[in-house]
């Protein structure tokens, strides 16, 4: 039966995340926006609490690692599982602060990657590890198939060489999931991901970026020089299967894109919630029954933004719900990411405009959210990459036909 309400069993988790976001993240939101690169020490306690909730089962398996697609018997009927719980709780946390959510120990995108592609032995071995994700290189962004970082088999090890940029929590995390190619001539099929623990000789965190937004989250450049990693740290299959191609590595994205979409949804809702109150205090009433055109321009604009938000929110839930029900969701994950990414910037920027210099000022957080939201339309695949994926799938075209 069609029902798009938040599932009953996830509501306590959402409420919990909301309280954490309100009472822990919001009070330090501006502080770490101003003090870029300073470690938000408050998060250690929070991370410990989240681990505790996770162990007790109270979190329904939500979190960065909640995207693992469990094997086992197909249970009959509709499932609301960890993917849905994860997007809904991350949404709440990002209503609090996207930068701080991204800095949350043991909740990195690397953890999602491990959860998505690791075998059971690796999953156990990397349990409790805070893992960052390293894909982008100075000369390679969206075309991740052409990365230059190499991995060369040497005995029981792989030797990594190359430079990675834009590694979220790259300095703070315990390990980095690095994409490297076994053989550049074999293209995307030869790209594998490796878990490289911090302190591995040959791995250096070179510098941290100064950014437009999500300044609480550190963004590192990491260099690998003859960095030796055990072959057992290669995630997934060692074989280069030209037929299967990129699928293994890209499968991570089907799981992480709804998460990033949920970040944009959460951030935008923060802007909408505050803007609604600011407008109401200014005497602007938003009437759901009156035609938009008979209301003030501010109210009509707000309705438009909220409508766009609702679409992004539901597209995100759809993608997660499909993952929970083991339906292929590449198309829906990219739709959610595309819609949420552009909605996020549009909503947060328009909210600044609606609030005037009050919204532009650092005395409110509206201007910060308008800076934070921009990255969400870029990382884990830009708006244009998502459109490319959606277009190829809808039109049934290959990457050779639709470049």
């Amino acid at each position, binding site marked *: 039966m069609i*029902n798009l309400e938040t599932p009953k069993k996830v509501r306590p988790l959402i409420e919990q995340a909301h309280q954490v976001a309100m009472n822990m993240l919001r009070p330090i939101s501006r502080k770490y926006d101003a003090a870029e690169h300073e470690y938000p020490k408050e998060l250690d306690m929070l991370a410990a609490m989240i681990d505790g909730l996770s162990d007790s089962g109270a979190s329904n398996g939500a979190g960065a690692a909640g995207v693992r697609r469990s094997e086992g018997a197909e249970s009959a009927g509709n499932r609301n599982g960890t993917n849905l719980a994860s997007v809904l709780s991350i949404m709440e946390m990002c209503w609090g602060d996207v930068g701080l959510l991204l800095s949350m120990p043991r909740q990195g995108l690397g953890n999602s990657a491990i959860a998505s592609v690791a075998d059971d032995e690796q999953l156990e071995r990397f349990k409790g590890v805070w893992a960052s994700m390293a894909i982008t290189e100075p000369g390679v962004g969206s075309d991740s198939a052409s990365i230059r970082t190499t991995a060369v088999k040497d005995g029981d090890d792989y030797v990594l060489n190359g430079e990675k940029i834009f590694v979220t929590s790259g300095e703070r995390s315990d390990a980095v999931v690095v994409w490297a190619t076994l053989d550049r001539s074999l293209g995307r099929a030869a790209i594998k991901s490796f878990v490289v623990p911090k302190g591995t000789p040959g791995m250096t965190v070179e510098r941290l970026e100064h950014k437009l937004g999500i300044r609480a989250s550190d963004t590192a450049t990491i260099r690998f020089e003859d960095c030796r990693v055990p072959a057992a740290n290669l995630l997934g299959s060692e074989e280069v299967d030209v037929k299967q191609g990129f699928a293994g590595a890209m499968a991570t994205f089907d799981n992480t894109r709804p998460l990033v979409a949920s970040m944009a949804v959460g951030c935008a809702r923060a802007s909408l919630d505050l803007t609604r109150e600011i407008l109401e205090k200014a005497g602007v009433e938003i009437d759901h029954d009156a035609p938009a055109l008979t209301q003030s321009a501010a109210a009509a604009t707000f309705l438009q933004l909220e409508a766009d938000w609702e679409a992004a929110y539901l597209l995100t839930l759809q993608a997660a719900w499909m993952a929970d029900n083991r339906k292929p969701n590449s198309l829906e994950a990219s739709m959610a990411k595309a819609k949420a990414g552009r909605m996020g910037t549009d909503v947060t920027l328009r909210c600044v405009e609606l609030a005037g210099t009050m919204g532009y000022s650092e005395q409110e957080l509206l201007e910060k959210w308008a800076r934070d939201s921009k990255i969400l339309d870029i990382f884990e695949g830009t708006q244009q990459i998502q*459109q490319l994926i959606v277009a190829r799938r809808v039109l049934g075209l290959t990457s050779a036909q639709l470049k």
Partner: protein
Amino acid sequence: MALNPVKSVLSAGGRHGLAESERRDPIGLAVAALNRLAQSDLVDRLGIRRTSEQTVYKVTHAGFRTIGTVGRSFARKGTSSAGQRIPAANPKGLFDLTPTEDEQMLVDVVTELAEEVVRPAAAEADEACAAPDELLKATLDIGLPTLGVSEELGGIAGERSTVAGVLVHEALAKGDMGLAIAALAPGAVATALSLWGTDEQQQTYLPAFTTDDGVPAAALALAEPTPLFDPRMPATTATRKGSGFVLNGTKSAVVRGADAELFVVGAELDGKPQLFVVESKSPGITIESDPSMGVRAASLSRLILAEVEVDAIALLGDELSYLECLRLSRLAWCALAVGTAQAVLDYVTPYVKEREAFGEPIAHRQSVAFMVANIAIELQGMRLVTWKAASRAAQGKPFDREVALARRLCAEKGMQIGLDGVQLLGGHGFVKEHPVERWYRDLRAIGLMEGAVLV
């Protein structure tokens, strides 16, 4: 005010889409005179005009007037106590995008009808400003008017059928929006009677809708032809007279007005908007044909009420039912937008893959492919927001916010999809050989329409 003869000749405004401030200069006067000559019979008598231009549109011509159809007598039955109500849907508390088996069966049947019967008839019905009788009969055969009527009253709804209604509107509008509206309009009136009617109203009027044959044409008339119309403040009035009411005013976007035997009309009573059931044979009713930009197969009309006297039975529900009616009607329009937008996507997808320019299919260009991608993305967003509003309504939860958002989204994105549908076909999109120009006109209705359909 005394007429200024000079001004009256030079003043061009007030009609033909001209603002009142428009003034003619001498050349303009000469052109206007020439135009009047061109329109006169003299030209025809001289055999100058081509015969194809002589077609006189009797029905499609705006302003063609008739009195309300002299339909059946609705024999009074029942009491003024509350009518039958349909229980709310009760889901298991899980997020779910899968229709129930019953809903899916219904959607499959309607989808087939939309493909096999509705779409092939669409272009001609658009031209004729009328839906073919056999098509309307086919929609009656599958029980569409009784979708929102409870089983106890002879309908098919076991529980509140807002979701099923949305799915059916979507599936039928994928065939054609105008025909969908023509077919679904009687169901809007039946659903309103089912949701808010007294025992007497239900006993009197619903049997006509639930019999196998002869379901009356009926129309839910909420819109009025004024700019910035807020349906909560209709200019149409109801005043009390004895135990009954007297109605005055003009309603627009009335589906198949000339055929309709029963209207549910929005009017202001004692400062509040209310619904009234009005039989077409009531004296004082005039129907004026009102062909519009799109949804022409729905034979849109104006309903002019001049001192129309109705009995106490006419008042349907209360002020809250009026609001609910408004919301559920807007929701139905959203579902129509989703169906038509899906038709656009399904049509342009193969087209851009077949159409070649510069030696390859235009789909191989990002500017074209991304337009298709955005249609797919926004369409799915429209669908989900509409479904959410529907599922909340079916469950008896507040849904005013959700309907408002669905309406904004479907108006904005639906129109964009209509635009892009034409643009993707280029010049071919502008000609009637392809349906995209019709969908462009139909999708403009979303966001401005009130009434007509209901889920």
